[in-house]
């Protein structure tokens, strides 16, 4: 019998990302063959986690329904506190990711949220992460639902099912920026900007929010301040394409040559990405940038415009709003 613990140690030696995902996929097949339920579940969890933190989330999203089904089919997993918790955490990652995939319809998303809520209630956990992720999902869709969930999130206690304090803080910043409350957002962001609160994606995700906020208001000096902070992190990172996209939108105004170099270094990641939201923001930024180059890059510019328009259309269909479509037209994105 194969020692799955050793197998797990082996794939943890692989480089993070595609290589490791491939190795975990093989481990899943081996565990399936051996019908070892605990390891079947655990490798699926490993797979989703790898895709979320070191991938574009696509493969995790594809794998998740099968994992959920597997969990439901094996009630012994729910008897283990460890497995229950792992399932819950996977759920939390996935409901955050679904806003990036217009393929997931609103009713499918709602069904996911309902299941997450049931799971949290079942385990006596706080609904904090449910309200947080649901509020986030609805920010572009329904302002009432976004507000309703946001304030319930604020009231819900934090526990081991919740996102950590740094991510909760980032969420509060995001909401204040969503409302256009710059002062409140800066106040909320202080623990992150001062370095007191940090997480794997922070402070960069917060910086990115401010960058987009100031860019959308035409306050380029302020936007550039945040751009300089995130660019070293985002440049060359295949899973931060959305940041590259926003950076390119900014450089299209402030420093197109710098933006072009950034574009060239990161385009290959765009070509490989299967995350529609990341691709949309990159394509939008690339279009903003390339159109400043006139005839020289016209064809490429049009190509990105087409892709961005197509992707934004998919989001409009799911979300019922055309924020992304308007974002493609730079003059509408930036409301000076």
């Amino acid at each position, binding site marked *: 019998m194969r020692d799955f613990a050793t197998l797990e140690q082996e794939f943890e030696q692989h480089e993070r990302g595609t290589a490791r995902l491939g190795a975990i996929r093989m481990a899943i097949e081996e565990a399936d063959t051996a019908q070892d339920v605990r390891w079947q579940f655990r490798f699926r969890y490993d797979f989703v986690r790898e895709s979320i933190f070191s991938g574009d989330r696509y493969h995790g999203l594809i794998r998740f329904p099968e994992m959920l089904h597997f969990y*439901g089919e094996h*009630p012994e997993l*729910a008897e283990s*506190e460890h497995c229950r918790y792992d399932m819950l955490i996977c759920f939390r990652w996935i409901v955050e990711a679904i806003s990036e995939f217009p393929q997931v319809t609103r009713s499918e998303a*709602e069904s996911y949220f*309902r299941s997450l*809520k*049931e799971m949290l*209630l*079942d*385990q*006596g*956990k706080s609904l904090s992460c449910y309200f947080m992720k649901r509020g986030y999902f609805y920010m572009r869709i329904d*302002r*009432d*639902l976004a*507000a*309703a969930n*946001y*304030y*319930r999130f*604020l*009231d819900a*206690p934090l526990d081991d099912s919740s996102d950590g304090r740094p991510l909760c803080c980032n969420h509060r910043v995001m909401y204040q920026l969503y*409302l256009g409350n710059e002062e409140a957002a800066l106040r909320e962001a202080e623990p992150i900007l001062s*370095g*007191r609160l*940090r997480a*794997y994606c922070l402070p960069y995700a917060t910086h990115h929010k401010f960058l987009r906020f100031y860019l959308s208001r035409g306050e380029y000096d302020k936007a550039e301040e945040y751009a300089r902070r995130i660019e070293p992190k985002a440049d060359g990172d295949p899973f931060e394409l959305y940041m590259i996209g926003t950076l390119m939108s900014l450089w299209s105004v402030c420093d197109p040559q710098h933006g072009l170099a950034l574009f060239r270094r990161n385009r290959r990641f765009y070509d490989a990405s299967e995350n529609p939201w990341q691709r949309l923001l990159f394509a939008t930024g690339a279009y903003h940038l390339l159109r400043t180059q006139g005839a020289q890059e016209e064809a490429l510019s049009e190509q990105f415009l087409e892709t961005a328009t197509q992707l934004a259309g998919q989001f409009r269909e799911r979300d019922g709003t055309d924020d992304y479509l308007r974002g493609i037209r730079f003059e509408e994105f930036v409301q000076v």
Partner: protein
Amino acid sequence: MFSPEALLQQIHDMEHGPERLEAIAAAIRQADDESAHYWRIHLRYDYVQESVFHGDNFKAIICFPELLKVFDEHPEYEEDTWDDIMLAFKWVLDNMTDYYQITREEIERYYEEYSKRCKKFGITERVYYMKLADFLLPIDKERAKEAYDAFRSAAYDRGKRGAGSDCKACEANYNMRYSLIFGQEEEALRFAAPILSGELRCAEIPHETYSYLCWHYLYKGDLSEALYYGALAERLVNGEPEHLDSIGTLLELYSVTDPNHGWKLLKENVTQYLDCHNPYMQMCFATGAYRVLHALPDEILQDITHNPLILSLPIKSGSGEVRLKDIHDHFEKTATELSQRFDERNGSSYYMDLLRTQLKAPEEESAPASEEAPAHSLHGLVQRAPSILAVFVPEQIGLDAVCERVKANAPDGFELITCLYEEEQFFVTVRYEERLYEAVIVSADTMPPEIPCRPFNGLDREGLQAMLASPARYAVHYDFSGDPFLSYHILLKLLHTAFPDMAGVVDLVEQKAYPETWVRFVSECRDAVTADDLFGLYIAANEEETEIWITTVGMRCMGLRELEAAGVTPDNFNLAVDILCAAARAAIERGVLPDEGEVFTQVNYGEEPYEVLWQSSEKLRHERPEALCGRLERELPGAVLYIRTDEGDVLPAECTVFEDYDQLDCPNSRRNFMRRIRLAKQSFPLFAKAVQHPFERAAVRMEFQVDEELADEYGYSIELLWCEIDRVEDGRIIGVVADTSEAVPAVKEGDEVEIVGDRAAGWAIQPQGFPRVIYEDEGALLLEVGLA
């Protein structure tokens, strides 16, 4: 203009409770006026939730029919809100039986409606049966059993388990409760096991589990178990309005075990009782209060109280005073009336039968040195004992004058509830951060001059002799309440206010003597109390002095079993003291001593951790009498420490495993660590002032920010490094980094840094001419009074 975002922000900024409830009600009115139907539903749900979880659920009962009506009128929001509605429905079902005003027929109609909606939304009826059993229990135990069986046998289909289901913790608690009701105690404890181990918990669990187990054992007559669960419950429910029924259970418990403590708990929660609109909770509290007062001797019931909290009860009182007998009668009448009303509604005599039940009084104290080993495992928590201190004052002062002084100089944040001189006793009760602290002070001139105690915290033997020779002395009787650190700080603050010219105090339980300077220091600085201040050590030996017995004294004042080190010899004495003190600190700082046989702390020997556990001295006497110091009789049940090693369990006598004493490390807890950091920052100005003068040696432990990437790698973002003070220039303190850390490569040993108070995490100084280095806790005290 209706702005839900602004309203929600405004509501969110409020504390939970009546004010927030009113704000939500105002928001509901605005949403109604604007016909904002989504918000009409959303806000009503918030209102129900607030009332259920942060109040007495009275307003939830009133509001719920409206919520259901608006929900039914607007099917367009059904998809978004039905699960909220079913949750609210469940809470209301859970609580509507608390109102005798709601008829049995009305309640039954609600159950039918709930069942109908469960089917509509595809929800399992487990919850329906679960709540139905609760409703039926005081009406017809057989029918309740049928409902409970239906709940147990309902298919547990994970797919259908959903909105409205109780969480696993609540269900485990429910199963435990019904197993007890139907006489299956073993099964009940099996259900409760994951709750008691901490694996399952939620907003209401384990609070309700502890309370119910307390109630069960109390009515069963097993007071030892009832006291244990009562002690656990009290920490969670005291002062919480939504747990007033559990407080009633605790009052019932204390009516037979400790009416004085019951009386204090009654006073602490009387405000919650008066604010409560829930008749069931009122009945539970009134029953407990009645039992507490009923347990007092008749002559005490004739006494009067001036306590303003008690005076707010709806009892006819003379000018600012009320007889205890009148309070007794009030609660007896309330408990009886409410029990009758519930029974009338239910068509049974369930509540009156409970009220008439004679609770079993504690049996005569059994001989402590019983030869019989206890049959079951024992608990680390025990009933609290009072703390008794003696205050020494250079000049006699009447307690009436002391009373006036306290009235005139009550410290900031202290609400004086009682400050009364009566029959040569001074009673003082203060409310601080919603909790009551009570002390009784009497003159103690007859106290024998020889008091067994040792000097501590800046007091030397000569100082102690001088202090004990003071002509005036007072005895203070005090019960710890809540956090023992805060409790001790408050006690000493109170004493320093009452006797500012005192020479010092002796803690008669701990047998420790403290100088006035320390009392003043602690009274000013809450973080100055350490776990070591909260217990003492009692040491005795056999006549040949080959066997030593060490036990803590003072742990019982915090409701913890006293810890003992058995099998100690002169060779391992220091080791045993260190392990014992580490264990006592761990128990005090966590506020809990787990059950016998459970690991509660560890000591490190080199790289190797060893687990520390305890077994009862009663059992040890039976099983391994040679391990105990034979000559000594124990008055109280103790917890004898032992250590778990790979090769078996050992007592200190067999601690050859620790023969290299220097490698033993008894780690301090995080709480102590954070307290020291706070204290260092707070007392830094004293240090900064001291280093302006010549000193032998001084150093500050400074906080250095760890680079972001390294912080991820090391798992912490602040490194603490000692810096030796090099010089003081124009008021600036310059230090030299004394160590190099890989986590902060930018800072190296020998680098100069400016020392600033807000980055200080500890400090040490040896003033010129002073014999040793002193650290921030003792240092602050000595510098404050100029002793160093």
